[in-house]
């Protein structure tokens, strides 16, 4: 039986939610402006503008809605979005939403999976070295974490692919050749996650932050008091020393790992958002770009909202951050 004060938590989450929506609106405006201010014309994927007669160009423009003023275009895009319609891709003519979901899920799995792998490596290292019991061991582990972070992810990909294809003959795989989705087996799914989890370059920062926070918490008076009463110091330091810094780091590192995912998608021919984004950017496929940016930004904000929620539940002083300096 515990009294959780739902009201302030709900209020906090709602506030964060509105801030997030407001920010997403800003993001969409910024990206939309960049799209339309940048050189290049989406029409070039359909026609050769120089040779086509102007009437056809005008017709096409009207079809795609590009003939109107830019603010109007933005508002109409926003209006569609509010009705759950991301628009249609200029290139394929298919709804953006469907394509986004198809590749977005892949990227999400890659990102979340590798985040878990990263945490599985980083947390034990941080916990062991924050105890200060084995100075040499903890320095060695920290150094190991730094080396993992410094390892370029694409090279790690090469090594892993080489070992699995050449040594174990596990799956026919060449980095430059396309792999059909029928070969989407477990290893194919698993390897990129492992590679990105180990090599995304955030382990060192996570270890550093966790270690710092855990050391601080372990030297708090209340941990000493818990020890004096014979209780487990881990039970008492878990919330402030592990849960809060881990959530902070997860929320902060999502964009970073998304970036790493783009590289790993390339190495492993993983059909994800990075490739779609690149193709769409080359084609000036505005609806797809807008969709991808928004999707990524929503993902980032879901991470932050989760962080807010965890903070609110963990910390009785709702609204105040649990971390001092």
């Amino acid at each position, binding site marked *: 039986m515990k009294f959780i004060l739902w009201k302030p938590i709900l209020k906090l989450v709602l506030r964060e939610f509105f801030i997030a929506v407001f*920010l*997403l609106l800003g993001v969409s405006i910024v990206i939309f402006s960049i799209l339309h201010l940048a050189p290049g014309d989406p029409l070039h994927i359909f026609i050769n503008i120089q040779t086509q007669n102007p009437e056809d160009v005008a017709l096409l423009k009207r079809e795609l809605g590009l003939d109107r003023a830019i603010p109007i275009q933005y508002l109409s895009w926003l209006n569609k979005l509010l009705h759950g319609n991301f628009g249609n891709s200029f290139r394929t003519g298919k709804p953006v939403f469907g394509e986004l979901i198809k590749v977005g899920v892949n990227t999400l799995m890659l990102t979340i999976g590798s985040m878990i792998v990263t945490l599985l490596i980083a947390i034990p290292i941080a916990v062991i070295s924050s105890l200060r019991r084995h100075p040499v061991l903890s320095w060695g582990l920290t150094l190991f974490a730094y080396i993992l972070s410094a390892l370029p992810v694409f090279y790690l990909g090469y090594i892993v692919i080489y070992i699995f294809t050449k040594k174990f003959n596990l799956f026919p795989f060449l980095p430059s050749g396309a792999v059909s989705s029928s070969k989407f087996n477990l290893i194919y799914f698993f390897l990129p996650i492992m590679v990105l989890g180990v090599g995304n*370059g955030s382990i060192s920062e996570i270890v550093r932050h966790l270690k710092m926070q855990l050391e601080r918490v372990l030297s708090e008076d209340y941990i000493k008091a818990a020890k004096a009463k014979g209780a487990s110091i881990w039970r008492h330091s878990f919330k402030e020393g592990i849960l809060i810094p881990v959530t902070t780091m997860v929320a902060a590192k999502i964009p970073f790992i998304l970036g790493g995912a783009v590289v790993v998608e390339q190495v492993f021919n993983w059909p994800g958002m990075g490739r779609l984004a690149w193709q769409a950017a080359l084609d000036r496929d505005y609806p797809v770009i807008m969709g991808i940016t928004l999707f*990524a*930004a929503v993902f980032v904000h879901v991470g932050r909202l989760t962080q807010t929620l965890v903070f609110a539940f963990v910390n009785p002083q709702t609204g105040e951050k649990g971390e001092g300096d």
Partner: protein
Amino acid sequence: MRARYIQRAAEVSEFSQIPIWKRANKKDIIQIGFGLLVVLFVLSSYITSVLHLLTYDPLEINLKEIMQPPDYKHILGTDFMGRDILSRIIVGSQAYFMPGILAIFIAISFGTIAGLVSAYNSGRTDAVFSYILDLIDSIPKMVIILLAIAFFKPGIFFIMLIVGITNIPTVASLIKSKVIFLKKRNFIEAAKALGLKTTDIIFKHILWYNCKSIVIIQATLGMAEVILIETSLSYLGFGVQEPAPSWGNMVASGGDYFFRGDFYLSTAPAAAILISILGFYLLGDGLNNLLEWRRKR
């Protein structure tokens, strides 16, 4: 023996009197030394290219000597066009260094200003600053960079400008939380009550005494991240373009040979990336230990 002991205890009563090299322990020295070696390597690369000290031109194609494994003539071997890999690695370090410094400079200077301003002025100014910073922070870096590349086909300096801008929020939020922490402890009021000038308080007492380690950590982490981004982009073919050498495109062009068993083509530049990033991590860690030393023990 005892006399010396007593004497020493009296001598070293004040922390500030201990010279910095005495404060450092073996671990710090190793870390900083390693980091400085990496910096030295980059600097020496500029010197060698200015003074034409390299035995082989990194761009010189020599089809008679393609795919030479490492030997005494080519210490790290040659690539598929017969170019000397060592020369290419040395020159390749220039691909990230100056642009990286630009990125770090932007991130830290603007981040510090934004952090200070929004911590000092609560209310509307803070809200506006926070909104802009959050906005920058909401868009994943890689998406923005890809868009910029696709639209503008920019040079590496422009890309690093974007990296710098996207790093502003991190620095700003760290500085801001530090200043707010100091404010809560009535540190700033106390300094004001002592009659210190505002510029003194901000530059000396807030930034130098309390934000030094944030800046150092962010600068070295930033450099490591810049190497990561530059090599990733070059690997993807968006950054430095062949034939100009960059560690990223060297790994990529060696990739096909890697799977045929010729590892050294991409291993050598990958090792260069690893050592450099590690060097900057350790440099930051070591410097931080040294400067934040009193607080730690």
